C-alpha cells in the first residue's frame, strides 16, 4: 500500500515540472516574427526583479524586458539615445537633470508606465529593508533619493553634487518595478514575493516561462508600445542552463544551442575548422586580468619591487601561450591601467608597458636588498624570504593557467609564489576587505570614466570601495576630482590620460591585459549586434532570413 502511494507521488510530481508559468497569449506567435534563438548559459538567473538582480545572467534577461529610460550605444564613448525619456537636459551647475517622458509606454498588462513607477522604484532602492545591491546608486540623489515629479510627463533628478554625467545617467536609469503590483508588498521579503518570478515587461520581450535551472523562455511582448525599431523579429529566445563548459560545447557543436559565450581559444580554433555554420565573434576589451599587490604588505611597499616583478613577468609570453590561437591571432592586448582602450581618446596610448627583462628585474631587486644569500634559489633580505601567496578564484581555467605561469616566471628571478584558489564569493569579499597578499583577479571595464571607486584614497568617512590594494596618491586624487568636475569630455580627457600615466608609474597592480571574449553564434542569425555593452543588448534586432529558419513553431 505504502509503495503504491510513493509511486503515485513520484509520477504525479514529475508531470508537473515544478516550473513557473506565465500564461500569455496562449503560445500563439506575434506576426512577423520567426525562428528561435537558443542560448547556452552557464548559470541560472537568480532574481528577476530589476533593482534586486545581481548577476550578469540576470541583467541579460531583465534588459530585454525593459525599455530603458535613456538608451545607449557605444562608439568610443557612450552615446545616449531617447528611451522613455524623449529629451533630457542638465542645468548649469550639473546638479539637476530634467527629463520629458513618453506617455505611451505600457506594462505588459496594459497599465501605463508613469513617473510614479519611477519614483516607486527609487523609493524601493533607497529603502534599506529592501537590501538592494544598487543602494549606492541613490547616495547622491536628493531629496529622499527619488525624482521630483513635475507633472505626468516631466521629472527632475536632483543630485547633491555634480559628478560625471554618464555615471549620473546610469544611476537614474535603473529598470522599473511596477507600482501597481508591488505597492503593498512586504519590503523585507521582496525577493521572495509571490510575483517575483512573473516580472511585468515593458520592453520588447516578455517572459513566457521559467523552469529553474533548466530554461527560461522569452517571447515578443505583444503589448509593447515603444518605437517600432525595438520590435523583435525572433519568435522565441530560450536560455538553457548548462553548467558544464564541455557539455555546453557539445550542445553547440550538435546544433542544440545557437549561442555560447566564453569559448576557449583552442575550441575556437577547432570550431573554425570543423563547423562552418558557427560564426565566431570577438567581443573586445571589456575584461581585464590583473595581479593586485596589497600595498600594506611590507613586501610590496617599495615601488621598485613592484616594477621588478612587472619586468620579470612575461606578459606577452603569457598572451602568446594562453590567449593566442593556432593561426597566431591574439585575443588580448597588454593593459596599462583600468581605462579600456575602447574609450578612444581617453585611453593613454603613450604609456608603454614595461618590457620583459628578468635580468633588469633581478638587478632592481638587488638594489633594494633582495639577494639569494643562502643560495636556496629564493631571494632573501634580513633573513626573510621573498615569498608570497597569490590568491585567485576557483572555477576560472584561464586564471589558473596564468597563475601557474606567473609562478614560473617569478621562480626564475628567485621569488617564491604560492598559489591559493578560493571560491569566488569569499575571494571577492577578501579583496574588498584587503585580506590578501597578492591577488589575481579582473575588472570589467566601466564604459564611462569614473575612477574614484578604484583609485581614490580612503577618506575617514568612506573606504574607497574597489580600491583593493589600498592605493593612495594625492596627485591622482586631485586629477580624479578635477576630471569628474569637468563636464566637457574634451577637457577632461587629458586629465584622465595624465592619471593613467601616474598610476602606471606607481604599479599598484600588475596590469596584465584586456582580453577579447569569443562568442559563438549560429550563422543563420543576421543583424547580430554584439558590442562591448553586452552580447544581448539589442536582441530585438536579431533576425533570421525566411529561407534559413530552423525551428518552424
Amino acid at each position: 500500500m505504502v509503495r503504491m502511494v510513493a509511486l503515485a507521488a513520484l509520477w504525479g510530481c514529475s508531470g508537473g515540472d515544478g516550473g513557473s508559468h506565465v500564461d500569455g497569449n496562449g503560445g500563439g506567435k506575434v506576426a512577423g516574427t520567426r525562428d528561435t534563438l537558443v542560448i547556452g548559459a552557464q548559470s541560472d538567473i537568480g532574481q528577476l526583479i530589476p533593482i534586486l538582480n545581481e548577476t550578469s545572467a540576470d541583467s541579460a534577461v531583465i534588459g530585454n524586458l525593459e525599455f530603458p529610460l535613456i538608451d545607449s550605444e557605444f562608439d568610443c564613448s557612450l552615446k545616449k539615445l531617447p528611451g522613455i525619456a524623449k529629451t533630457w537636459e542638465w542645468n548649469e551647475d550639473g546638479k539637476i537633470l530634467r527629463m520629458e517622458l513618453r506617455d505611451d509606454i505600457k506594462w505588459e498588462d496594459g497599465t501605463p508606465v508613469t513617473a510614479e513607477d519611477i519614483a516607486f522604484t527609487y523609493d524601493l532602492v533607497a529603502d534599506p529593508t529592501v537590501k538592494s545591491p544598487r543602494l549606492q546608486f541613490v547616495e547622491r540623489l536628493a531629496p529622499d533619493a527619488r525624482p521630483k515629479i513635475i507633472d505626468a510627463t516631466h521629472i527632475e533628478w536632483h543630485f547633491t553634487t555634480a559628478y560625471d554625467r554618464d555615471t549620473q545617467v546610469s544611476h537614474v536609469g535603473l529598470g522599473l518595478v511596477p507600482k501597481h503590483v508591488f505597492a503593498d508588498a512586504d519590503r523585507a521579503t521582496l525577493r521572495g514575493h509571490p510575483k517575483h518570478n512573473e516580472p511585468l515587461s515593458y520592453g520588447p520581450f516578455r517572459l513566457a516561462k521559467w523552469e529553474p535551472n533548466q530554461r527560461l523562455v522569452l517571447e515578443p511582448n505583444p503589448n509593447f508600445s515603444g518605437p517600432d525599431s525595438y520590435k523583435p523579429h525572433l519568435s522565441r529566445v530560450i536560455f538553457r542552463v548548462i553548467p558544464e563548459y564541455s557539455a555546453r560545447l557539445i550542445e553547440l557543436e550538435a546544433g542544440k544551442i545557437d549561442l555560447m559565450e566564453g569559448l576557449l581559444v583552442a575550441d575556437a580554433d577547432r570550431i573554425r575548422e570543423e563547423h562552418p555554420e558557427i560564426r565566431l565573434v570577438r567581443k573586445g576589451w571589456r575584461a581585464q586580468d590583473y595581479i593586485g599587490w596589497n600595498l600594506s604588505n611590507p613586501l610590496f611597499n617599495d615601488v621598485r619591487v613592484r616594477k621588478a616583478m612587472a619586468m620579470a613577468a612575461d606578459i606577452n609570453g603569457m598572451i602568446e601561450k594562453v590567449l593566442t590561437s593556432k593561426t597566431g591571432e591574439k585575443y588580448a592586448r597588454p593593459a596599462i591601467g583600468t581605462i579600456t582602450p575602447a574609450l578612444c581618446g581617453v585611453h593613454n596610448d603613450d604609456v608603454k608597458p614595461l618590457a620583459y627583462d628578468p635580468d633588469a628585474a633581478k638587478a632592481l631587486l638587488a638594489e633594494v636588498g633582495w639577494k639569494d644569500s643562502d643560495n636556496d634559489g629564493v631571494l632573501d633580505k634580513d633573513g626573510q624570504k621573498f615569498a608570497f601567496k597569490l590568491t585567485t578564484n576557483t572555477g576560472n581555467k584561464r586564471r589558473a593557467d596564468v597563475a601557474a605561469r606567473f609562478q614560473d616566471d617569478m621562480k626564475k628571478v628567485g621569488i617564491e609564489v604560492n598559489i591559493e584558489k578560493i571560491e569566488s564569493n569569499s575571494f571577492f569579499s577578501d579583496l574588498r576587505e584587503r585580506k590578501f597578499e597578492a591577488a589575481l583577479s579582473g575588472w570589467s571595464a566601466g564604459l564611462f570614466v569614473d575612477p574614484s571607486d578604484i583609485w581614490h584614497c580612503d577618506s575617514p568617512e568612506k573606504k574607497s570601495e574597489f580600491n583593493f590594494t589600498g592605493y593612495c596618491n594625492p596627485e591622482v586624487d586631485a586629477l580624479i576630482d578635477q576630471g569628474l568636475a569637468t563636464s566637457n569630455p574634451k577637457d577632461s580627457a587629458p586629465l584622465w590620460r595624465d592619471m593613467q600615466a601616474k598610476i602606471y608609474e606607481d604599479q599598484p597592480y600588475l596590469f596584465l591585459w584586456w582580453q577579447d571574449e569569443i562568442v559563438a553564434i549560429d550563422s543563420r542569425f543576421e543583424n547580430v549586434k554584439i558590442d562591448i555593452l553586452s552580447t544581448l543588448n539589442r536582441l530585438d534586432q536579431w533576425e533570421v532570413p525566411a529561407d534559413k529558419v530552423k525551428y518552424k513553431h
Partner: protein
Amino acid sequence: MTRVVRHEQQAPPALARAGLLLPGLGHLLTGQAVHGIGMLLLTGVWLLATVSGFTRLGAVLTDPTTGRILPGAIVALVTWAGLAGALWFGAWRLVSPRQLDDEAFNSNREIFRRTLLRHTTGMLGAYGVAFLVLLVLLAPMIAPFDPNAVDTGPKAVGPSAMFWMGTDELGRDVWSRILFGGRISLSIGFIAVGLSATIGTAVGAVAAYFGGLVDRVLMFLVDVLLSLPRLVLLLTIVGLFRTQGALGILLIVVVLGVTSWMGIARIVRGEVLSLREREFVQAARALGYDAQRILFRHLIPNAMGPVMVHCSLAIGATMLAEASLSFLGLGVPPPIATWGVMVDDGRSPLRSAPWISIFPGMAIMIAVLSFNLLGDGLRDAMDPKLRGHQ
C-alpha cells in the same frame, strides 16, 4: 613423532631459471600466467627506473636550483634496491621452492597465503597496487620532466614519443604529473583509510564490548551517518571549513577519514560480539584480565582480518571521493596536484585535448580497480568456506 616434509609444487628447473634472467619470465613459462605477467610488469617498472634514473642520476638526486639532495630521490633509490631484491628473490623461489613440514604447511597463515596466491583476480589486484605504489615511489627516477615546470613542451599536444601522455594547457608533461600526483592521491587514500580504520575499530570494539546503551547509541550514530549522502556531507564540511595549503590537504584527509568509519565499526562490532563468547576470551576473563587488555590483546587483533578486506575496498572508495571533491572545486588546494585535480584540469579542454583528463582518470580507475580486486581476493582467502574453490 615423524616429520613429513612437503614440497611446494616443483617447477621444471630449466624454464624456471629463465626467471633469474628476467623476473617473471620463469613464472610465465611454467604456466603461472598471472604471476608471470604481474612480475614482468614490475620488472618493467624496475628496468624503466634503472634506465631513465641512472642515465641522469645527478639530475634526479639534486634540486636544480640549490644543488641539495632531495629526500624523495633517496626514497626512490631505496625502493629501487628493495624492488630488485624482491623481484629476484621471487624468481629464485621458483627455482628452489621452500620446504615445509606438515604443521607449517597446514597452518592458517600458510593456507591463507596459498589461497591468496592462487586467487587470479586477487593477485591481479595485488600486482596492480604494487605497480602503482612502485611507480609513485620511483617517480623521481622515472618521470622524464619536472611535473610542475610549465612549457616543458608545447601546450596541449597529444601523446608522442617525447611526451608519452601528451602535455596539458600549460605545456606540462602529463605522464610526469601522473607519477608525482599519484603520490598525493595514494597517500590520501592510505592515510584517510588508516584514520577511518582506527576510529571504526575503536567505536565498533567499544560498542560490542560494553553493549547496552553504549552500543545502542553508537550504532544509532552509525545509522545516522550512513544515511547521509557521503559526498554531500563531504562537500558541506569542506565547503564550510575550507582552509588553504597544508592545512587544506589535512582537512580533506581528516574529513575523508571521519566520514567513512561506519562500515568498519559495524564489522568490528560483529566480529567482537562473536569472539566475545569464544573460549580464549572467556579464559582471559577468568584469569582476571581487565577489559582494556582483553580488548586490545585478544578481541581487536582477531577482528583485524575482515577490517583489512574492508580497508582495501575503502581505499578505492576514498580515492574516488577525493576525485569527486576536486571535480566539484573543493578538492586539494593547488599547487598540489592529485589525479582528481588533473582530471578536473582537463575538463574544459575535453573536446580539444582529451588526453589531459583521460589519462589521470585511467590512473584512478586502475588504482581503484586494483584495490577492489585485492580486497575481494583477501576476503576469499580469509573465508574458510571459499578456500579451495577459486
